[in-house]
C-alpha cells in the first residue's frame, strides 16, 4: 500500500494549495472591486480638467507654455514603468515589462537617451537581474495609490522637462478597460497632448486670465494622467491576480479528481488482491 500512502499525501497537499489559491481569489476579487470604484471615482476630475483645458487651449499658446513644448526630436526621454509589489498575478508583470522593453528598444533605436524609473518590486527585480541601470526604483506605492503618490512620482520629471533636461516622459502601465481587458500600454504624458473636443472658447469670464489658468491646470493635468495610470494599474493587477488564482483553483480541482480516482483504484486493487490471497490460502489448506 506504499503507492496509496503517497497518493494520499499528494491529495492532501493539493487540497491545501487549493485552499490558499481560493482565498487569494476571493481577496483579489474584493480588492479589485474597491480598486475599480477608485478608477470610476477618478473620472469626474479628469473630465472636468480636460473640459476646461480643451476650452482654453489655443495652438498659439503652445510656445508660451513649457509643458506644451513639442521638441523637434526626443534626445532625452524618461520611461516610468508601473509594476506590482507582489507576484502570483499571472503574466501581469511580465506583460508590463515586455511593453517597457519594447518602448525602450524603440526609443533607443531612434537614438534617444532613455532613463528608466521603475515602480514596484517586480519590475525593479527584473531590471536588476538583466543589469539595466535604473534612475530610480521605488516600492512604496501601495495597491491603493493616492494623488500624492502620483505627484511625488512625476513632479521631479515635470520640473526637468520644463528646464529642458528631458524631451519626453512616458508611463507604462495597464489600462483597465474591463475586468477581462487590461492591456499594457505606453502613454506619453509629457509634452502634454491637449485634450481634443469642445474647441472654441465658450464665452467664459476668465480670472485672472486664460494663461494664468492654464499655468495652474497643466501640471494638475499631468499629475492626473499619472494618477489615473496608477489607479488603473492597481485595478488591473487585482483583476489579473483574480484570473490567475481562479484558474489555479480550477486546475487544483481537476487534479484532485484525478488523484482521488487513482487512489481509489489502487485501494480497490489491493483489497481484491488480499481477498484473492485469503481465498487462495483457504483452498490450499482444504486441499
Amino acid at each position, binding site marked *: 500500500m506504499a503507492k496509496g500512502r503517497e497518493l494520499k499525501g499528494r491529495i492532501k497537499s493539493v487540497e491545501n494549495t487549493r485552499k490558499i489559491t481560493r482565498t487569494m481569489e476571493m481577496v483579489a476579487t474584493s480588492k479589485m472591486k474597491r480598486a475599480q470604484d*477608485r478608477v470610476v*471615482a*477618478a473620472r*469626474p*476630475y479628469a473630465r*472636468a*480638467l480636460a*473640459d*476646461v483645458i480643451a476650452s*482654453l487651449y489655443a495652438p498659439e499658446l503652445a510656445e508660451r507654455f513649457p509643458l506644451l513644448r513639442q521638441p523637434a526630436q526626443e534626445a532625452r526621454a524618461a520611461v516610468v514603468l508601473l509594476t506590482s509589489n507582489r507576484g502570483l498575478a499571472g503574466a501581469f508583470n511580465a506583460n508590463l515589462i515586455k511593453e517597457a522593453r519594447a518602448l525602450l528598444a524603440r526609443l533607443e533605436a531612434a537614438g534617444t537617451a532613455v532613463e528608466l524609473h521603475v515602480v514596484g518590486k517586480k519590475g525593479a527585480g527584473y531590471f536588476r537581474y538583466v543589469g539595466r541601470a535604473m534612475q530610480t526604483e521605488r516600492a512604496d506605492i501601495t495597491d491603493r495609490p*493616492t*494623488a500624492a503618490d*502620483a*505627484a511625488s512620482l512625476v513632479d521631479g520629471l515635470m520640473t526637468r522637462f520644463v528646464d529642458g533636461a528631458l524631451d519626453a516622459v512616458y508611463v507604462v502601465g495597464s489600462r483597465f478597460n474591463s475586468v477581462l481587458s487590461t492591456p499594457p500600454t505606453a502613454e506619453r504624458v509629457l509634452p502634454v497632448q491637449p485634450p481634443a473636443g469642445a474647441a472654441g472658447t*465658450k*464665452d*467664459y*469670464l*476668465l*480670472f*485672472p486670465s486664460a494663461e*494664468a*489658468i492654464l499655468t*495652474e*491646470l497643466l501640471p*494638475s493635468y499631468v*499629475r*492626473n494622467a499619472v*494618477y489615473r495610470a496608477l489607479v488603473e494599474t492597481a485595478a488591473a493587477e487585482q483583476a489579473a491576480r483574480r484570473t490567475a488564482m481562479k484558474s489555479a483553483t480550477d486546475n487544483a480541482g481537476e487534479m484532485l479528481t484525478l488523484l482521488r480516482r487513482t487512489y481509489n483504484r489502487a485501494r480497490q486493487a489491493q483489497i481484491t488482491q488480499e481477498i484473492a490471497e485469503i481465498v487462495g490460502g483457504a483452498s490450499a489448506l482444504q486441499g
Partner: protein
Amino acid sequence: MLKVSVISPEATLFEGEAPSVTAPAFDGEVGILPQHAPMVTVLGTGELRIGEGTARFQVEGGFLQVVDDVVRVVTEKASRA
C-alpha cells in the same frame, strides 16, 4: 438653485443643490448666485462655503467653473471643514 459639485482627483467630495456658493478665489472671495455668467477662476487658499451651512471645505488651489447654473470646484487639495 445651483448644481454644485466639489471634485478632487480621488473622489467627488460633494454633489448637490444649493442657493449660493462662496469660494476663495486667488484674489479674494467670490460669491456665486444663480444666473451667473459663465466663468472660470483660479482658486487660492481658504474656505469654500456651499449654501447656508450645507457644506464647507478647506481648499487650496484648483479652479472653479460656472456654466448654466452648474458650479464645479475642481481642486487637488480639499478637505471637509
